[in-house]
């Protein structure tokens, strides 16, 4: 992994909870599906480790931002689904606003010009 990759992975990891909330906003989902959605969105270049994701689910659930329920027994065992709560949606919107504001500040500080 190059230094650039490590930097990008760090940024991504720092936003794990918000990213998970973003995925769950589209509908209830379970671990593998969430992991896959993140992997697909990054084009497979970066991914968030599954252990990191499990830790994020537990923190989110503890904070009441998501709730979980067990799905029906399928061929693949019992899946634990997560659903975003209203509190989770509110936190998500707040974090997205903060991200946009911070991105603008960092862009200014790093002197990033708009790419064509």
């Amino acid at each position: 992994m190059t230094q650039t990759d490590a930097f990008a992975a760090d940024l991504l990891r720092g936003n794990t909870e918000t990213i998970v909330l973003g995925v769950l906003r589209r509908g209830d989902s379970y671990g593998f599906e969430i992991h896959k959605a993140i992997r697909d969105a990054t084009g497979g270049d970066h991914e968030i480790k599954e252990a990191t994701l499990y830790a994020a689910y537990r923190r989110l659930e503890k904070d009441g931002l998501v709730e979980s329920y067990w799905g029906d027994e399928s061929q693949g065992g019992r899946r634990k689904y997560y659903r975003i709560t209203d509190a989770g949606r509110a936190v998500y919107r707040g974090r997205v606003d903060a991200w946009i504001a911070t991105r603008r500040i960092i862009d200014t500080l790093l002197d990033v010009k708009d790419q064509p």
Partner: protein
Amino acid sequence: MNTDIHRLLDEAFADVAMTSDARDLKEEIRANLMARTVELESTGLAPSAAARRAIEELGPLEELLGTSPAAPSPEPMAAQHARHKVRPRPGFVVRTTLLSVVASAAAVLAIAAAAGGIDGGAGAVISLGLISAVALGIVTGDALAQETTVNHPMPRARATGWGVATFAAIAAVAAGGAFALDTGLVASAIAGGVLALASIGLFAWLGATQTNRGKAWVRAAAPAGEDHGFADDNAAARFGLYTAVLWTVGIAVAIALAVAVAWWWCLVILAACVAVMMLMIARMLFARGADE
């Protein structure tokens, strides 16, 4: 089916104390690993290699198990009850309304038939009573599978159990009514007695074992180590066995006495069973000094 995943998962959790928390996590990971393994296999990987790869991708489990979410919640229980309450779905409301109308209509017609307002006699009473019983059984089971929230529905088998118990109770009334109309219908009387006994036994068992404790939020809110109202797991298992034995013997004796002596003997036995059951609950669940 790829069984390697189960073996590897057991190895990964070999040194972990199996709290309910760790067990939940293991089950959650299992389902996700199986999905990932299927995906890896579809890219041409051999099953055992796919299983190993999926486990490796998981990353370190230690950091996960260290962070337990089971810390007691400061939120009061009543507030949590309010927050976790889920409103019924429209489809459920429509279903229940329609079935209730069917059940009521059938019950009214059955009573009319019993009173002689409608031709058909005992046969009409039985068939209309059965229609009513089936409809109300479905309403009951449906309501229970639904009401306890979308997140944590009552297990389907248990909800079905409540539905069957309801059906048996109403069907017993219908059978008894038919027998009252036509005392020649001994089979109907016996069937009614058996149904009534089965219904009471099933209701008692379902009621005694009914619990909120399986829900994730209740587990999270409960202090660690306090999983059920019994002194320990053995006491809970003993209670289940005593209940099964009591009702099996009680129902057998009741049927035997009803057939051999007189039908009302089954009521006596039943009352005795209920009394013993209550005493058992009082002694085992609310034992003096159990809270200290």
